């Protein structure tokens, strides 16, 4: 079960990082600003996911990273919502 969890949570981290990389490289190619904000969101979510991985899988009892998981997630989501609200429509 532990190995299974390890793989699942690692996959969540890697998927999140993949989103960051894909959105980031797409921003570099297209210059669409909404993609920059989306990239920043997934940077935040990736950090949050990495901390979740450490919090739940690596050090399940030793540490409590809840606050440090929430801060980057909230920052990332605020970037995303800013991008969606200001940059998602043409003209």
């Amino acid at each position, binding site marked *: 079960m532990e190995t299974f969890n390890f793989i699942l949570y690692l996959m969540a981290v890697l998927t999140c990082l993949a989103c960051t990389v894909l*959105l980031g*490289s797409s921003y570099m190619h297209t210059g*669409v600003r*909404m993609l920059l904000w989306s990239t920043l969101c997934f940077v935040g979510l990736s950090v949050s996911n990495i901390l979740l991985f450490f919090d739940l899988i690596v050090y399940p009892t030793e540490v409590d990273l809840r606050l440090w998981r929430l801060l980057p997630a909230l920052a990332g989501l605020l970037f995303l919502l800013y991008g969606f609200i200001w940059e998602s429509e*043409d003209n």
Partner: protein
Amino acid sequence: MEDSAFSEAFCRFIQTAVPSVPVAELLLLIFKQPERWWTLPELLGELPRDVNITEAGAVTSLESLRSRGLVEFDDNKRVRYRAASDALDAQVHTLAQAYNERPVTLIRMIYALRDTRIQSFADAFKFRKR
């Protein structure tokens, strides 16, 4: 997806040359009688009633169709269908066919391609073709 049969080239054609449904209606009306020279009032008169376009909008649209190499003007400001290349002509044929056979899909696609920033988010997740 039900519209998956549209080729990438056709999507690009729509994206660059046919930014809205009224422009599609306008182009197809002119295309139906390829030899006819149209005046603006004739065009506006023969467009389907539900097409929402002003006279000024039609002028702008015709000018953009001309700049894309799809129509030509004569000295009296009349307009006629004229595709600058066989490839463009083929795309207009595809457009006419799609309009007749799958109008809802086509209209949805025109709207979809207009929302290019939103689309760019989804397209970011494609590995190839960047």
